[in-house]
């Protein structure tokens, strides 16, 4: 699968690339300077409500496009670019690097602590004989020492897998839409790097993280679901 191919029935609902760094108080003091630079494309400002479990400095401000299709989140220790209408890796990468460039120009990102690429997929399904038809969508072998261990009423799996010095997180959960009762699986992938990070290598980290997550997704889905994603349907 080429990097930039977008499936017509893509389950992607959100893509995020996040850079974390050692706390920079300047981000709080000069948020306005950053906002001025991106205001034209991301005019809508969202501020966090009080969350008793999270210090205010760690809660992100969010700057979004008018149509809410993409935006930027930033707090004292992070900046992230997200897209809810993913138009392919090349466009995502170009905008991510542009945004990070502006941020770096103002705040001088030196001590990076983590970079992460997150792909969130929602896969709606209809139950078959009251079970989640997992094998019609995913190559997931969760064999347990039980007779029907591949039959699931519900799923809730969270895995954190070391990949050399990086970390790959996979979340698979069954969800239900509170509005229309539609059931869905979430396939949530997060590839993060945290060793010896340098700002001038962000482009490489983006490429590597995206490449890994994309390849994993392609291997994770079964052929018949890929047909659906490609639009090969009745």
């Amino acid at each position: 699968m080429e990097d930039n191919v977008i499936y017509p029935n893509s389950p992607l609902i959100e893509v995020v690339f996040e850079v974390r760094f050692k706390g920079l108080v300047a981000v709080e003091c000069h948020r306005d300077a950053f906002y001025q630079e991106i205001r034209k494309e991301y005019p809508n400002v969202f501020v966090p409500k009080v969350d008793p479990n999270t210090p205010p400095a760690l809660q992100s401000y969010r700057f979004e496009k008018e149509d809410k299709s993409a935006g930027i989140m930033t707090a004292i220790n992070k900046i992230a670019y997200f897209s809810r209408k993913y138009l392919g890796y090349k466009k995502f990468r170009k905008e991510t690097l542009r945004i990070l460039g502006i941020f770096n120009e103002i705040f001088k990102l030196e001590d990076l602590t983590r970079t992460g690429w997150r792909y969130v997929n929602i896969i709606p399904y209809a139950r078959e004989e009251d079970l989640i038809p997992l094998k019609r969508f995913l190559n997931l072998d969760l064999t347990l020492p039980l007779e029907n261990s591949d039959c699931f009423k519900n799923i809730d799996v969270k895995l954190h897998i070391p990949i050399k010095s990086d970390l790959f997180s996979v979340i698979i959960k069954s969800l239900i839409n509170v509005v229309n009762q539609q059931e869905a699986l979430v396939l949530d992938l997060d590839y993060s790097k945290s060793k010896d990070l340098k700002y001038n290598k962000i482009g490489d980290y983006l490429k590597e993280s995206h490449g890994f997550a994309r390849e994993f997704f392609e291997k994770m889905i079964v052929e018949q679901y890929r047909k659906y994603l490609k639009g090969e349907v009745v």
Partner: protein
Amino acid sequence: MNGLSGFQGYINIEEENVCQLTGQGLPFSRDIDWKGYKIDDRTGDKEEAERVGDTKSIPLWFIISGSKKLIAERPIKANIYKEEDCFTVENEPLDIYAVGFTLNEAIENFMDHVVEFWEHYKALPDNKAGKFAKNLKNKYLTSFIEEN
């Protein structure tokens, strides 16, 4: 050690191990957060979650109605529409439109219609079918295999 870590009442700012998501509502969640979705209560996790947008379609490979089971050769794209007080599930190539007060009911009705149509077209002689019916018959007979 970072400037903000290590004191009682403060938290380490590098604790999270996945990228933050947007939520779409406030406050932002540090974990999964999709508007319209929540974690299934049956898992015991009642965490409320939010996420953008609603489902527009689902793939179906397995059609079941009563004792009849059909397997689709290619996925059937069931398009879903939420009306004011009901749901419509439709597939134009199969000429099926099903309605239900709940989504599950609409999907069940959709499957019932598919099986009814499949049986109807299977029994329909070619010389009794017009052009439109012949096309549909061909579509049904090439799209499904009956599971014995």
